[in-house]
C-alpha cells in the first residue's frame, strides 16, 4: 500500500526554543561527579560545601572537589535531601522525613504529615525544616526535632483582601514541587502551575512573587515550571525547568541575571534537574539521565554581577 504523507503542520519542533543567546550564558561546566546511583533524585550542599546526593536507598557524600567522602545506606527510598547549617542531614521519602547526624547515623524518622503524600522538596534552616509535598500541594513546616509546626498552602488567609495575597494556592500538576531557604527568614517556594516563585515567611505569610509563563528565556516554560530552585549567596536564586531543560539565575527581585545551562547542555528528555549552590556561588546541577551531578562555575569572561 502506498503510504500517505503528513504535511508540515503535523511536525512538532522545539528547536527554535532550545536556542539561547550565547551572551546570556554566564556559566560553564567545570566538573562532573558520577553519582554511581541508578536513580539519583535529589542533591544538597552542606557545611564545608560538601555535596550530598540521594537516591537508590542511599545518600552519597562528596567533598567540594567532587571526591567521594561517604556512602550511607537508607531504609527508605529517598527522593530529596537538605542539610542544616549545623550539619544535620534531612532525607525525605515520599511520605516522611528522616534526620541523620553528620556522620551518617540515622537519628529519627518523623511521622508522615499527610496522606496521600509525595514529598519532592526539602529545605533546612537553623531550627526549621520545610518539606514540599506535591500530593498535598502544601509545604510542611517542622521544627528541627520533627515537630509539625504548620502547613503552608499558598492560599490567602480568609481576611486577606489583597489581590496578590496568594491566589488559588500551590498548583502542582506534575510530581515536581520544590522549596528553598532564602536569606533572612524568607522561604522560597516554586509554584509550578502558576509558573512563578513565591516568597513566604516561615509562618506561611505570603510576601511576594515573581516569574511569568513564557518560552522566552526570561520566563518559565510549559505547564509547570520551575521544577527546582535554590538560593545563591547574595540573595540570587537558581531555578531549573523541564520540557526545555534549562538552568537560570535570577536576581532577588526576579530579573533574569544569567543562564547557567541552556537546553543544549542536556538530553531533550532531561527532567528532575535538582540544583544546589555552594558558598562560593558555584552551582551543582543533578542530571538524572546522565547519573551525574554537574558543576557550573561563572565564566571568567562573564560580566560583573549587579549588586543586589
Amino acid at each position: 500500500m502506498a503510504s500517505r504523507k503528513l504535511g508540515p503542520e503535523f511536525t512538532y519542533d522545539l528547536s527554535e526554543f532550545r536556542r539561547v543567546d550565547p551572551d546570556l550564558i554566564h556559566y560553564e561546566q567545570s566538573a562532573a561527579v558520577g553519582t554511581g546511583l541508578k536513580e539519583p533524585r535529589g542533591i544538597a550542599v552542606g557545611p564545608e560545601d560538601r555535596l550530598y546526593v540521594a537516591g537508590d536507598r542511599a545518600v552519597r557524600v562528596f567533598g567540594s572537589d567532587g571526591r567521594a567522602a561517604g556512602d550511607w545506606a537508607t531504609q527508605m527510598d529517598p527522593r530529596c535531601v537538605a542539610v542544616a547549617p549545623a550539619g544535620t542531614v534531612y532525607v525525605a521519602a515520599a511520605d516522611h522525613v528522616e534526620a541523620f547526624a553528620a556522620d551518617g547515623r540515622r537519628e529519627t524518622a518523623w511521622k508522615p504529615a499527610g496522606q496521600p503524600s509525595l514529598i519532592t522538596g526539602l529545605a533546612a534552616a537553623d531550627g526549621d525544616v520545610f518539606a514540599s509535598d506535591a500530593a498535598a500541594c502544601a509545604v510542611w513546616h517542622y521544627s528541627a526535632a520533627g515537630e509539625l509546626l504548620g502547613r503552608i498552602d499558598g492560599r490567602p488567609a480568609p481576611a486577606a483582601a489583597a489581590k496578590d495575597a496568594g491566589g488559588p494556592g500551590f498548583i502542582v500538576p506534575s510530581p515536581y514541587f520544590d522549596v528553598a531557604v532564602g536569606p533572612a527568614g524568607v522561604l522560597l517556594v516554586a509554584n509550578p502551575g502558576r509558573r512563578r516563585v513565591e516568597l513566604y515567611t516561615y509562618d506561611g505569610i505570603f510576601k511576594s512573587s515573581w516569574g511569568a509563563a513564557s518560552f522566552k528565556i526570561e520566563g518559565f516554560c510549559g505547564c509547570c515550571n520551575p521544577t527546582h530552585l535554590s538560593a545563591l549567596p547574595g540573595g540570587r536564586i537558581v531555578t531549573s525547568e523541564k520540557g526545555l531543560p534549562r538552568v537560570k539565575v535570577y536576581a532577588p527581585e526576579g530579573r533574569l541575571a544569567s543562564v547557567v545551562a541552556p537546553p543544549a547542555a542536556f538530553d531533550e528528555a532531561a527532567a528532575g534537574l535538582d540544583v544546589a549552590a555552594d558558598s562560593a556561588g558555584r552551582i551543582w546541577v543533578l542530571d538524572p539521565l546522565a547519573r551525574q551531578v554537574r558543576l557550573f562555575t561563572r565564566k571568567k569572561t562573564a560580566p560583573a554581577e549587579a549588586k543586589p
Partner: protein
Amino acid sequence: MSEPKKQLSRREMLRRGALGAGLAGVAGTAAVLAARTARSGTVWQLDPEKCIQCGNCAVNCVLDPSAVRVVHAFALCGYCDLCFGYFPPGFEPDDEFETPGAESQLCPTGAILRRWTEGPHFEYTIDEALCIGCGKCVKGCGAFGNGSLFLQVRHNRCLNCNECSIAAACPAGAYRRVPADHPYLLKGEDQKA
C-alpha cells in the same frame, strides 16, 4: 483547607502510578470486536511506552483516516491551564488565553477540546472523529506535561488485519497482538499481554 476532589484523585493516581483512560465507546464495541477476533482471540495494539510518535500510525493504516487515535488518561492529567498538548510550542499566554482561537491550538485538525472545570483547572477531551492519530499532541504533552495523551488502535474502527500495515512500518517495534478481552495498553496500567 481540603483539596478539590478531582485533584486529590489525580494525585492518588499519580502516586500509585495507575490510571484509567478516556476511551469512549469501549464497551459498545465489544460485540463487534468479538466477531472480528473470532479467529485468534487477539487484536493489534501499540505500546505507548515504546511509541516515539513517528507519524506512521496516521498514514500507514489500511483505513483513511487511520484506526489509531489519541486517548487521554484523565487520572494522569494535570488539568493545566497552559497545556502544551493543546497549545503549540512558544504559545505566549495573554489575558485572552482562556478562550483561544484555532490559530492558538497545536492540533492541526482541531480535535482537542478544552473546557474550564474549576479554579485554574481545565479538562481536555478528544473529538475522535477529528483525530487522525498523528501524535503531535502526544509529543507536546510528553515534553512538558505528564504524558497523559497517547495513541491507541481504536477497536471500534480497526479491521484487525492479519498483518497490520502500521506494525510493519513501526520503527519502535511498538505493535503486538494482545488478548481481545484486554484490547488496550493503557499507560501506567499493568495490562501487558
